[in-house]
């Protein structure tokens, strides 16, 4: 009985797949963790999708599903997209990693691209941006602009990507003011405007006069503006939400990558790869430096250019852990392996990492 059911299901599956493969345009699908209107993470991925439509619109067709919870629902949504004829699927959140791998096993002819994860296979690539490069720049700006010498950092989840960002911010700030302090509040969500706002308010109340964020809504920067302090946007240029508060923003620029990968599928040259691009490749871009004196803007532009050209590395030694132990000495910088698994704070961060 079980076998018969399995056979029937297999038959139905193959029928369904042949039924939808009549279209000659390549269908490119996107799976989003938040709403496309979050003006943060998901918004920038969707901007990338629109750029793809704009540039390759005559050869591709795009489709997306937004606000898909990480977990078993993601597996269904990805399968659904593939069954609808998608030939290339971008899954844009860390929690989609295992579902992406599982679905990819069932559909070896479809290409998958997973953002921010570390599991790959023959038809699954991974990609992520070196946001920490931008975080070093905003750390420097924060230390120049702060009067109290304390910044508040609204953080999402204590995973290496976020910890790396806090450390890069701290190192940037310390390069200007060695006594600079960073407070951190974990909101345990990528997108929760209410909690993000509360977190920003608490830290401003505790003396922070600069707000940085690693969450996806515009709430922290808007709170900064309301309370009359300064801050940084996240993922997209949030200047319209906080024209008096935004100093700059670290912009995720996914469009060129999406166009290149889609073109590779069209050419038949697509291969599983691991991409970690930064300012040099244009995946990380700084928004205009606003609300700051010219000398600070000049310094920020100079640092950005040095990181872009490779003359400077945000994680150049000497770097010390919170407990004072030296991780790397003068003249060297941390390699990608250490950065990918980072689960410790550098000296000076005023927080204990949830372990």
């Amino acid at each position, binding site marked *: 009985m079980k076998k018969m059911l399995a056979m029937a299901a297999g038959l139905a599956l193959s029928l*369904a797949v042949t039924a939808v493969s009549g279209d000659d345009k390549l269908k490119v699908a996107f799976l989003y963790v938040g709403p496309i209107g979050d003006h943060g993470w998901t918004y920038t991925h969707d901007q990338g999708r629109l750029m793809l439509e704009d540039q390759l619109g005559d050869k591709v067709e795009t489709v997306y599903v937004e606000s898909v*919870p*990480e977990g078993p629902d993601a597996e269904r949504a990805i399968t659904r997209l593939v069954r609808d004829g998608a030939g290339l699927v971008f899954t844009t959140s860390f929690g989609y990693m295992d579902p992406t791998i599982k679905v990819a096993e069932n559909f070896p002819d479809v290409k998958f691209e997973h953002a921010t994860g570390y599991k790959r296979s023959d038809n699954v690539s991974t990609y992520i941006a070196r946001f920490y490069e931008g975080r070093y720049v905003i750390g420097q700006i924060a230390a120049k602009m702060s009067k109290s010498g304390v910044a508040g950092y609204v953080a999402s989840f204590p995973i290496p990507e976020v910890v790396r960002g806090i450390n890069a911010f701290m190192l940037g700030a310390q390069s200007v003011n060695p006594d600079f302090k960073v407070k951190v509040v974990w909101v*345990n969500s990528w997108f929760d405007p209410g909690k993000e706002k509360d977190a920003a308010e608490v830290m401003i109340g505790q003396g922070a006069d600069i707000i940085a964020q690693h969450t996806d809504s515009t709430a922290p920067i808007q709170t900064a503006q309301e309370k009359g302090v300064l801050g940084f946007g996240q993922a997209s240029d949030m200047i319209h939400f906080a024209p008096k508060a935004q100093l700059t923003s670290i912009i995720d620029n996914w469009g060129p990558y999406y166009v290149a990968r889609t073109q590779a599928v069209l050419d038949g040259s697509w291969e599983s790869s691991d991409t970690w691009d930064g300012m040099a490749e244009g995946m990380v871009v700084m928004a205009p430096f606003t609300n700051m004196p010219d000398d600070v803007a000049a310094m920020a532009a100079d640092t950005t250019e040095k990181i872009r050209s490779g003359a400077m590395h945000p994680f150049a030694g000497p770097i010390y852990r919170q407990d004072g132990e030296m991780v790397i000495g003068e003249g060297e910088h941390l390699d990608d392996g250490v950065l990918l698994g980072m689960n410790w704070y550098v000296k000076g961060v005023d927080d204990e990492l949830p372990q």
Partner: protein
Amino acid sequence: MRLWLEQRPERSRAMSVISPLIAIALTVIAGAIIFAASGLDPLRALFIYFVEPVTTLWSIEELIVKTAPLVLIGVGLAVCFRANIWNIGAEGQLTVGAIAGASVPILAPHWDSFLVLPLMLLLGTLGGMAWAAVPALLRNRFGVNEILTSLMLVYVAQYLLDWLVRGPWRDPGGYNFPESIEFQAWQSLPTLGAGRVHLGALLALIAVALLFVFMARTLKGFEIRVSGEAPRAAAFGGFSRSRTVWLCFGISGGLAGLAGICEVAGPVGQLQPSISPGYGFIAIIVAFLGRLNPVVVLLAGLVLGISYLGGESAQIVLGISGKTTQVFQGMLLFFILACDTLIRYRLRFGRRPGAGTAGAEQAP
């Protein structure tokens, strides 16, 4: 001139049976209006939302995967709500059940035995029961409102899970990402058919059958019904209210815990910071839409399951917002409650009668 509600002398039995159907129909009509207002062909949109998810074997299997936890939790809640006991914290009981059951593969990863899976399911059920025992105890001993305690314990459970997967139970080979190790074949529920349908679906059916017989044919079931409908009569009949509270929380908590471990040992395959997209809360809608009757709860679970899958279809095929699912679920609950209210009360315009009859208008 004002609008007020007058209690009807008796409730129409026929209307209480068909009220969920009216609610579904009203939801569909309101949905059609919304679709039309967004510039879509309402008939095609409704077809894609409600019918397309059940047109292929794959999507029917996915519907079963989605419905199984809703039904498992929903039937337990139906029993609870029947007794006028308000367990709002099934989501937390689900979470603790998942933690308790997952402790076996996480703490003894190499123990390969046919006992592993039954033990996981047993611990999952007991975990859910234990979490549900807290509001039951507080209610019986101190008269604390169980709505508040059970709801607040949801957040406690979720933080407990969060702490475990970021701390002691984190996969040592997982780059510090917040996930436990993945479960092996002998630690996972067997699947039925080619897709992801797992043993949990069968357990849901068994739970429906058992609870149907329990409520309709046993003295305990009768006790629960009387205890909810006529508490004073139940007290005169010698039925213990505190025993009923224990029993109802035990059943609903245990089933929620079972649903939790079935999710973790089934489609999820490991512990993660979030293991349920709110099944414990959606199951409340399922229980009410199912008239608090175990068999009807099964059908209600399917309706809610379709609303999830339909939301995805609508996004992919029609390109409309992912919020559609929540809009439909919200409308459905609103219309059920509205229909039920109108079965009990009738709308009156004009002035209320004098104070003498005011007492009769209070809800029982």
